[in-house]
């Protein structure tokens, strides 16, 4: 594996290092060829900027609210699709239809469903005598609505990945578990989940990378200028939106590169955490 890491670093290092180089400068959007040396000035400014930490926290919470239910729902859906079914092609294609919907179209229709005055979701909860929610205006409702779009788009896709892995589990493992008296639920916990373990890890990694980059959903959900700032009080501004705001609204490309690097460090951190967790759980089970 050593040469792999050498090449990986060599190849992914170029955009990484170039972005880093830019982040050490003051570069304006209108005059891209003028780079004024700033050292770590962009980084110290970023660390002292409340808006950065706010976007960091929002990316984390939206990431958790969207990824955890998404993968759990996908696991359940895959389990259902793994039964012998009539019309299994229909159910699979239906599950994948949101994946074919562009983030723009999905965000537009969900923005309408979550609309405060005439949205279908408020209409529905008001049927039960509950007051309608101003989804865009306050922090947690907005983050919940944005996460709903992400969950809707990616659950079916992940379910199909799980289904493919489930179908590769040898049947005799289920038979052995059944002979040992394992119930269906125990078979699911003891045979299915361990059997698709590597796919689960794979989807966790993919969804986490996806979650750090959430951009289109909050942008469109904010409908206009509120989109880039992630709400009037930045209540749902993600790091992706902050990067865009820094570079293409405030014209500070050096600052945008700094945000990009911060995002990269977060991805690395997540990988290390995941590695650590994996080592802890595998040493416990063996």
């Amino acid at each position: 594996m050593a040469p792999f890491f050498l090449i990986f670093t060599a190849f992914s290092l170029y955009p990484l290092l170039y972005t880093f180089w830019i982040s050490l400068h003051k570069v304006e959007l209108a005059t891209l060829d003028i780079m004024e040396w700033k050292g770590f000035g962009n980084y110290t400014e970023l660390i002292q900027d409340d808006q950065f930490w706010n976007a960091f926290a929002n990316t984390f919470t939206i990431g958790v609210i969207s990824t955890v239910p998404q993968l759990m729902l996908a696991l359940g859906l895959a389990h259902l699709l793994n039964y012998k079914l009539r019309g299994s092609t229909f159910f699979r294609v239906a599950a994948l239809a949101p994946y074919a919907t562009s983030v723009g179209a999905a965000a537009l229709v969900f923005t309408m469903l979550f609309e405060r005055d005439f949205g279908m979701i408020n209409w529905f909860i008001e049927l039960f005598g509950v007051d309608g929610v101003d989804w865009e205006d306050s922090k947690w409702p907005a983050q919940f609505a944005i996460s709903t779009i992400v969950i809707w788009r990616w659950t079916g896709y992940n379910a199909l990945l799980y289904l493919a892995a489930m179908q590769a589990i040898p049947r005799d493992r289920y038979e052995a578990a059944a002979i040992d008296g394992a119930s269906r639920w125990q078979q699911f916990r003891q045979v299915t989940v361990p059997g698709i373990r590597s796919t689960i890890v794979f989807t966790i990694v993919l969804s986490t990378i996806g979650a750090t980059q959430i951009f289109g959903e909050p942008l469109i959900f904010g409908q206009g200028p509120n989109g880039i700032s992630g709400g009037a009080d930045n209540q749902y501004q993600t790091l992706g939106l902050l990067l865009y705001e820094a570079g293409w609204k405030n014209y500070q490309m050096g600052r945008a590169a700094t945000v990009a690097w911060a995002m990269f460090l977060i991805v690395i951190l997540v990988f290390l955490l995941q590695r650590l967790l994996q080592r802890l759980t595998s040493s416990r089970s063996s």
Partner: protein
Amino acid sequence: MTTDSLQARPDELAPRTTTTASGGRSRRRLLRTGAGRQHHAGPLAYILLGIAALTSLFPLYFTMVAASTDNTRVTQTPPPFLPGPNLFSNLAKAWEDAAMGKALLNSLIVAGSIATATVLFATLAGFAFAKLRFKGRNLLLMLVIGTMMVPPQLSVVPLFMMMSDLGWGQKLPSVIFPTLVSAVGVFFMRQYLSEALPDELVEAGRVDGAHSLRIFWSIVLPVARPAMSVLFMITFVHAWNDFFWPFVALNMENPTVPVALTQLSAGYVKDQSVIMAGALLGTLPLLAMFIVFGRQIVGGIMQGAVKG
């Protein structure tokens, strides 16, 4: 870690009429592994699956409903559940007011070129990695896999500077060229070809004196076709829906579909039913593809995790 999700297994993708050698092998494997669980679904499973399908499809249905009514009806409660009479006039308005016509054409060009180039390069490179022996093969393959792991947003700033250096700012080439080759595609085709293409076939071509390009044309391409069409469709979907970089690189005068859709939301168009008509227009081409080729796309995704 990623290998088992990225494997392209020919027995599921290839039509049953491919060479007997690979057909026999796959049938044996199917017998050995079984198809996971064999329980029949009970009523509860059907109910839950019905709810799941409804949840997946309802937002798309509602897009259509809202696009066929008018602004007054859409903004009333209870919201409309049945289609109205204005679908075509709203589609026409969205086509003109939101530059959806131009956006659709641009997206067709962008996604079409990216998918074509990706399939071509991925099949060539996948064949080379799977069947040709050359110096530094493993090293090169690792290099390809290495590029799969670069987070895309990290390269946005240098990419943007490069494109304005080249004079490609706001132009379609700036969104086409950075994504012409996909490492995931190369890996997908390599996995497929190393199983679906028997070494003997390539050897037979060699004995007959065919050079590599000729072998590629008359032996590899026919075998690779099912995987190529799946890779084309999946790459097309991704390129069509790609958002962050096109949003940065293009402007509203020359948008792709997702970029034009943000314009719809940003208050340029006030009529909610026209906004939904735009969303519908932007989604229809892919939905049509899904209705026709849904089964193949599902098979392709299950055989190889092609994301991004």
